[in-house]
């Protein structure tokens, strides 16, 4: 495209502060920003922060069209979400390719979750195609979507409304190159959702961080009870609780496939039970005279329930639980946990009175 032509205006407003922009490319529809395929330290720090919940819901880029390399009107169009973590995971795999990236407005949420919410959806694709003037940028009519976007999309509806044929690509961005080289065919391996130990481990900080508030509340209540003379709660209760929390939020997710049973709450409860036994042994069970059977029962009732509850919450981060299954699990787990913790608290209070 010649300089000074009517197409030199950018197609869309791009956020200026993106450190990952290389330059611009002219198209018949207007200027399009080119993105780098190498991640920098800024991207790495950004990823680390959102994994710990810092500014996590506002880690997004402008939706619209971007270029990788110098694509032309025959280059493939990859569709993705505007969560920066997702966008980074995609662009880092595109070195050496010439492609367009169509970024949907998923409100900063990843593809799979956005598809479940419907923001990665048919309507948004149709709107975004028209807003980015995609039909003037490419001469072909094919979109490559991530497979995990499928719960939000009706491929046949997209075709009907826009003329673009939807091809579902691989689950993981790392397979995109192979997929394109393979004539846009995903192998069976590329279609499998894995959930390996590392995948689970990176999710655990976001299990822990949201529990800080409730943890501080619990410690506050125990402190008040101590003040009121209903205690005494001490160091043992502190590490017993922290341990149970850690087991539910971190250890159970990490050891998930190796813990017997299927329900998440059960898996957490089982590890929590082992922890409760350990706590009681550390507490002098059964030899020492200071050992209090009522208190020990309290730990056995409370600690596994805490672990079970937090492990149950990991269902949402997992890649294979169904809502029907979760409801079935909760129908048993929630009343059991509530009763168990309630009884345990009564036991702890009684044991406090005995010691006084």
């Amino acid at each position: 495209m010649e300089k000074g032509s009517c197409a030199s205006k950018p197609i869309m407003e791009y956020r200026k502060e993106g450190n990952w922009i290389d330059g611009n490319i002219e198209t018949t529809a207007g200027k399009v920003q080119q993105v780098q395929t190498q991640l920098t330290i800024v991207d790495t720090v950004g990823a680390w922060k959102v994994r710990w919940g810092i500014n996590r819901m506002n880690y997004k880029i402008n939706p619209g069209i971007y270029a990788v390399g110098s694509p032309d009107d025959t280059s493939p169009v990859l569709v993705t979400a505007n969560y920066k973590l997702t966008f980074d995971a995609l662009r880092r795999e595109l070195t050496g390719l010439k492609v367009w990236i169509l970024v949907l407005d998923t409100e900063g949420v990843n593809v799979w979750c956005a598809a479940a919410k419907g923001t990665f959806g048919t309507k948004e694709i149709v709107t975004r195609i028209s807003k980015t003037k995609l039909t003037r940028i490419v001469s072909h009519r094919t979109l490559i979507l991530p497979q995990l976007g499928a719960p939000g999309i009706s491929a046949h509806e997209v075709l009907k409304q826009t003329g673009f044929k939807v091809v579902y690509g691989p689950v993981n961005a790392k397979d995109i190159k192979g997929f394109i080289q393979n004539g846009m065919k995903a192998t069976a391996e590329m279609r499998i959702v894995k959930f390996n130990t590392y995948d689970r481990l990176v999710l655990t900080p976001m299990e822990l961080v949201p529990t800080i508030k409730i943890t501080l509340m619990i410690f506050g209540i125990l402190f008040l009870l101590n003040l009121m003379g209903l205690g005494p709660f001490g160091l043992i209760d502190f590490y017993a609780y922290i341990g149970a929390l850690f087991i539910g939020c971190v250890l159970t997710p990490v050891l998930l496939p190796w813990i017997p049973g299927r329900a998440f709450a059960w898996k957490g409860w089982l590890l929590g039970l082992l922890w409760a036994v350990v706590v009681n042994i550390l507490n002098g069970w059964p030899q020492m005279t200071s050992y209090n059977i009522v208190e020990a029962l309290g730990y056995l009732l409370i600690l596994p329930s805490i672990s079970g509850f937090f492990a149950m919450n990991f269902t949402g981060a997992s890649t294979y639980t169904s809502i029907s299954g979760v409801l079935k699990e909760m129908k048993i787990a929630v009343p059991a946990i509530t009763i168990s913790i309630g009884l345990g608290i009564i036991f702890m209070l009684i044991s406090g009175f005995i010691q006084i």
Partner: protein
Amino acid sequence: MKHQYLKNVTTLKLNTNACTGCERCIEVCPHQVFALKNGKSEIINKDSCMECGACAKNCPFMAIEVRPGVGCAAAVISGWLKGDEPSCDCSDGCGSGGCC
């Protein structure tokens, strides 16, 4: 090691009569629930279904039925508290789970 969740819970149903064997469901399913047999789709792995709804939504012949939802206990609890259907709304800062 393969992850396995609860058995016999999914709401997934396939109407083989309406199926034309276009293989869209096989393409979109993240857990290999379907396979093509004698030119038609068949459910071969029912207990692996996570009810994401991708198959039903992408079936041009409406041969598949499933009640889609997010398998997230925190979403269910938040639904109970708000008197709503379970919704994946970690984005509201309700502070639960690392799903989205």
